[in-house]
């Protein structure tokens, strides 16, 4: 039996206003994403792949159309509700890691849990589990500057997983990594999809990275061009 769809996008468009000029980032996109899928979004710069990722993650809003994630129409949520929804349902992995430099690896991973009301002991357990999952339990007390790029990105993945979200959104997560670290990170994302049942959506330019996914969607000039 096919997995249920976790994301349903219908006739979605996004138009940015730059001064008096309207720039169409996405045009009439319709797309379904199944639970536990590892979907990669590919396309040239300016094709709208990051915009699509941001709308699915609830950090940007479409100009028209609908985007339902786990049955919730994100366009109907207010800013505060959307922030709460992101905290519980979405994990982010960015190209430049975006760890807070004054916090240790442990504290960076703990950050999203500060909003959950969990006890200190429970938070510590979850953070340790997430760091063990990415193989960095022994680096918990290190500051980001004391870690390699690959390790920093693995801490970022641990931060994305610590709240146990259904969706993991990765925006060119290997863009700043050497090939060995990139393989490690992609392996973790693949395992999250295959073994942990997470839906992973990854933006990438790299066909080798896209090969780790279960499905790849290509965008060009804001429209879906092909699917592989």
């Amino acid at each position, binding site marked *: 039996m096919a997995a249920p769809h976790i994301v349903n996008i219908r006739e979605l468009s996004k138009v940015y206003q730059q001064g008096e000029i309207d720039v169409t980032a996405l045009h009439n996109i319709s797309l379904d994403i199944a639970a536990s899928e590892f979907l990669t979004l590919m396309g040239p710069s300016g094709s709208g792949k990051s915009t699509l990722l941001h709308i699915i993650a609830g950090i*940007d809003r479409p100009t028209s159309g609908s985007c339902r994630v786990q049955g919730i129409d994100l366009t109907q949520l207010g800013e505060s509700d959307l922030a709460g929804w992101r905290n519980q349902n979405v994990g982010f992995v*960015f190209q430049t890691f975006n760890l807070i430099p004054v916090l240790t690896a442990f504290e960076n991973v703990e950050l999203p849990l*500060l909003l959950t009301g969990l006890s200190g002991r429970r938070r510590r357990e979850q953070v340790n589990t997430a760091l063990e999952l990415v193989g960095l339990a022994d680096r918990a007390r290190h500051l980001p500057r004391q870690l390699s790029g690959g390790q920093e990105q693995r801490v970022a993945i641990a931060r994305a997983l610590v709240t146990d979200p259904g969706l993991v959104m990765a925006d060119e997560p290997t863009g700043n990594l050497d090939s060995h670290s990139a393989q490690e990170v992609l392996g973790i994302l693949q395992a999250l999809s295959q073994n942990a049942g997470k839906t992973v959506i990854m933006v990438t330019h790299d066909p080798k990275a896209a090969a780790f996914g279960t499905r790849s969607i290509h965008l060009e000039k804001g429209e879906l061009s092909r699917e592989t």
Partner: protein
Amino acid sequence: MTLATFIAKNALRNKRRAALSILSVAVSLFLLVTLLVALRELTVPPEDIGAALRIVVRNKISIATPLPGRQRAIIEKIKGVEAVSPFSFFGGKYGAEENMTFAQFAMDPHLLTNIFGEAKLPMEQYRAFLADQRACVVGQITADKYKFKIGDRLPLTSSFYPNPIELKIAGIYAGSIDDRNVLFHHKFLEEAENTGGVAGTWWVKARSAEDMPRVLEAINKAFANTSSEVRAETERAFQLSFVSMWGNIKLLVNSICTVVVFTLLLVSASTMSMAIRERFRELAVLKALGFRRHELFAFILAESFGLAGLGALVGVGGAWLLYTQVSISKMTNGIFITFDPTPRIIGLALLVAAGLGIVASIAPSIAVARMSVVNGLKTLD
């Protein structure tokens, strides 16, 4: 980690800048407290315990116009009056000094302990003072400053009276609110300067606080329509009439206080804006992770408040410690007798610090509220 640790780590991430910000707030608040206390000391002079029962009677025309000696007996007969003493300013310069550095007043020595009961001196010194018409008593501050001893001579040259005088120190008093003055026999002044029995002012002691209004009115009435009309007023009112001459100084000090607070505000707002601008992308990441606007506001406000609070602790606390533990009278050579950072002044300075924390966080908070997560994240690449 708690939210408080997170805020503290952010606030102290650039330790040099944080230290300089705290220091600038501290120095400015220290200055503010100092100016406010100085202004208070100048405009609200300290009051003796016995001042509540003292009345100063001066010539209605001007304080420089003397009062005839016959008035004393008339005042003494007024109901509610306990004692009346002439009190005349001599205005002498000590020895070879160019300026007058302490005031000298001639009075009735027998009334010293009655009218100015706060001034304490040993009984044998007081007796020696009474016994010798050329004797004087010197306040402790002046005695310490000039290292005067009992028996020392005190040569004085006045700019008001033609003849220089020489007094003999019979006692050193302490315990009044202003232990700087020299007090000597009015009779000696009358004889040395041939004044004809006039007095600069009359200092009157009322029997009770309830008698004060009636005595004041009676004295003023007693000399109405005479050649020497008087103005009788409480010691407090008399002191404050001198304060009115400080009008421009008050305006100047107030202006400096305003400039200090405004500059402090600009410095703090600029520091907070810079600190937040540097962290724009991190704040966008926090938003992406689910932190809401009001939570980010709280972070910024707490950080701004924390820096201002630490500055206040150092600056206001330092001023309070200094002015309560150190003798300002000695430090300023007797210019300020007291320098009391009152709870009101401390409270006002803390209020300024709190306001500073809030106002400095407004602009960065608005910027963060307006920032979309996507735009914030775009600053990454």
